[in-house]
């Protein structure tokens, strides 16, 4: 939570800009610039890597059988052809991971505790999005309303429900355990995670007698409409919606944490709970707000993920949750900027390996996660606190 304010305060000290313009620059242009910079860094490094690998391995690779590419495939050509799509996939899923990762990282920052139930909060967001969409469809409103309104309704409902759910979870399962050994709330979180999965499963079984919840995006042509970016590269509006909403949320969170009084109080609590409470900050309230904001972001990410994957089940939370948690660790857990960088990098790595591995018959797609996580282990070997994490000295 430190990189952004440091830069920002350095800038404000220069006093070159006045009031409103400075405010705009500091809380909107800079964070957007930073996010785009991260996307460009992650994207270009992965592209260079992909091109290099494609170039090196296109010739027959004597001796190493697992690196042999079938003769009919020109690996370099394939990589070049796939590159734009690969980047787009990586950025899209990377932003989703980033938004989920914020929930993990904020709670960790404040409580030094990993909220494993967050992946289920995310899943609930996807389910709420489905419910809103189905209700709109049943009310004949889905194709009547402007798509933007539909999206805002879905995300808004998911944020409300999931924010509330996260607060309830905190109140019921974590608050009574505050002060207990660190492992205890962790186990409690895993328990909550199982409970929420089966709760949603049972609820939807009783409510609609369904398990699969396909988003009826077919009924809104806007979602599937293709945008041609360049020759051979086109995407759907859904992808753009995901990227833009994620950026809005990231910027909004940055503003909330760095520019509002509550955000300041949350940062204070994350630095030192006892002192913060001596300064008149209601620590419990701040923790509740942290859970609420994290849960709301998780819920919104759930809707975005549902729009992307088109089908939601009560079990979809686990894998993206795990990956988002990984992203948070990769970027430096407890660090909001780090979560964004970690999410984008992990998304890119995944896209990179899954675009390349199918051309090695001895390896195949199944290994893409192994390679992506091997990179993560390498990074953590050299930077145990994550890419942007700072080693914090023990408080005396």
């Amino acid at each position: 939570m430190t990189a952004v304010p440091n830069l920002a305060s350095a800038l404000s000290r220069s006093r070159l800009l006045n009031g409103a313009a400075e405010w705009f620059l500091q809380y909107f242009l800079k964070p957007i610039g930073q996010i785009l910079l991260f996307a460009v860094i992650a994207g270009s490094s992965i592209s260079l890597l992909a091109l290099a690998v494609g170039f090196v391995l296109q010739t027959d690779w004597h001796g190493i059988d697992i690196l042999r590419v079938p003769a009919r495939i020109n690996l370099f050509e394939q990589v070049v052809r796939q590159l734009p799509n690969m980047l787009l996939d990586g950025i899209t899923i990377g932003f989703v991971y980033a938004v989920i990762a914020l929930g993990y990282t904020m709670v960790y920052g404040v409580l030094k505790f990993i909220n494993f139930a967050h992946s289920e909060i995310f899943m609930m967001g996807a389910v709420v999005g489905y419910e809103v969409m189905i209700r709109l469809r049943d009310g004949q409103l889905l194709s009547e309303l402007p798509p933007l309104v539909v999206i805002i309704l879905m995300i808004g409902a998911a944020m409300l429900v999931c924010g509330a759910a996260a607060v309830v979870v905190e109140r019921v399962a974590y608050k009574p355990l505050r002060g207990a050994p660190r492992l205890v709330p962790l186990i409690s979180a895993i328990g909550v995670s199982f409970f929420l999965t089966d709760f949603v499963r049972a609820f939807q079984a009783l409510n609609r007698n369904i398990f699969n919840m396909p988003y009826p995006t077919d009924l809104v042509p806007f979602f599937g409409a293709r945008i041609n970016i360049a020759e051979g590269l086109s995407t759907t509006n859904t992808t753009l919606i995901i990227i833009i909403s994620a950026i809005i949320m990231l910027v909004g969170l940055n503003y909330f944490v760095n520019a509002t009084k509550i955000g300041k109080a949350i940062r204070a609590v994350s630095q030192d709970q006892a002192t913060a409470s001596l300064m008149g900050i209601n620590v419990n309230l701040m923790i509740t707000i942290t859970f609420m904001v994290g849960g709301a972001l998780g819920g919104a990410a759930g809707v975005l993920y549902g729009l992307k994957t088109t089908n939601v089940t009560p079990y979809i939370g686990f894998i993206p949750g795990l990956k988002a948690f990984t992203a948070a660790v990769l970027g430096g857990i407890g660090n909001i900027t780090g979560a964004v960088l970690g999410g984008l990098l992990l998304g890119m790595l995944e896209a990179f390996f899954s675009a390349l591995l199918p051309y090695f018959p001895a390896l195949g797609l199944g290994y893409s996660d192994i390679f992506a996580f091997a990179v993560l282990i390498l990074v953590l070997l050299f930077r145990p606190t994550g890419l942007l994490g700072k080693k914090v000295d023990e408080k005396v």
Partner: protein
Amino acid sequence: MRLDSSPESIISQRVQEETHMRMFKLFAVVAVLALIGQVFAAAPVSAQDKVIKIASQSPLSGGQSLLGTAIRNGAELAIMQLGKQVEELGFKLEFVPFDDQATPDVGVANAQNIVNDAAILAVIGHLNSGVALPSSEIYNRENLVMISPANTNVRITDRGYPTVNRVCGRDDAQGAAGADYAVKELKIKTAFVLHDKTAYGEGVATFFAQALEEAGVEVVGFEGTTETANFDAVITPILAQQPDLVYFGGIYNQAAVFFRQAREKGVKSKFMGPDGMDSSDLVKIGGEAVVGMIYTTTAGPASLYPAAAQFVEDYKKQFGASPEAYAAEAYAATQIVINALVKAIKENKGEMPTRAQVAAAVRATEDFETVIGKISFDANGDPKVATYYILEVASADPEKWGENPLITSVQAPSPLTAKEMMDKEKMDEEKKDK
């Protein structure tokens, strides 16, 4: 805090809070106990004389529950309608459905419970070959007969177990039939083959890809994936190669999501899949993306069987929904079991037959008329002749799934029967030569 709160009221509030907490804890304990009670209630009770049970094992919860429930319903309907044949002989016939959750571990755990209940003399199941393979090891150890309505993996019967039978076809023939159609009618030149890494999906996809390669079609990719939500990783290489055909060896709940995402991302290939696609949920999840898709199946639409019209009507009346694929097959499997039970009881002079006797009686089934036609088992438990159907998805409306048009059907003998037929031909020729 309220302004008027006196110390007493604060104390009483605390007491109240504590009672609330206690009430909550009590409630939690009761809820947990109730859950445990339910788990034990589902476990088999000790065997009683004169009660014969038939078990079913299929996924009743989770993403594949639509087909799994159809299997349970089909078996249940058969027992309701035909159980009196056994009851006339002085036995009570009961039905015990199990939920294998499409998961091998759960299927095996259920199988242990099933074999421990001495009154269970037959199992109808499973939906997934990957679950049936380990579970049937346990049935076979205890001589308990299993008839599968849906498992097409070749290893189910190729192990040659005396207890394991099926009323559906085999994946070697199904893969070949699908590939034959793809080559001759769709005239494809390149194909990308995916599977779900289960015994069933990988098995049928392998046979399909082999048959394609033998016919000279280039298989540009053969990949397994357990992903159920985000298929970007699989779609990227498909997009780069744009094959004529994309085949998914797996089950509808996973395949439909993949097909829909693939179309949205601009894959223009023809889609195809095996009998795991045969469920109205395929179009419910896949929408317009799967319309026009080709699928092979060993369970023909009920309209093809003259005897099935009554079955469809009874099924709708009983369960309030059209029978999905394998409901009729489960009904037929139960018909065979009941027929075998009657025979075994009679042979045993009205006494409770042993499991081995029932298994032998099932295996001896010869030209038995079921709701899906005449069935005879070969020495491995395969139906001597099975029919393979090729259908096309016609509409994105799940209600119209049963109206998918049949493109063509192929009859193929089981490997043992084919061998017998060849031996016989040879013998005949030798006789002629003499």
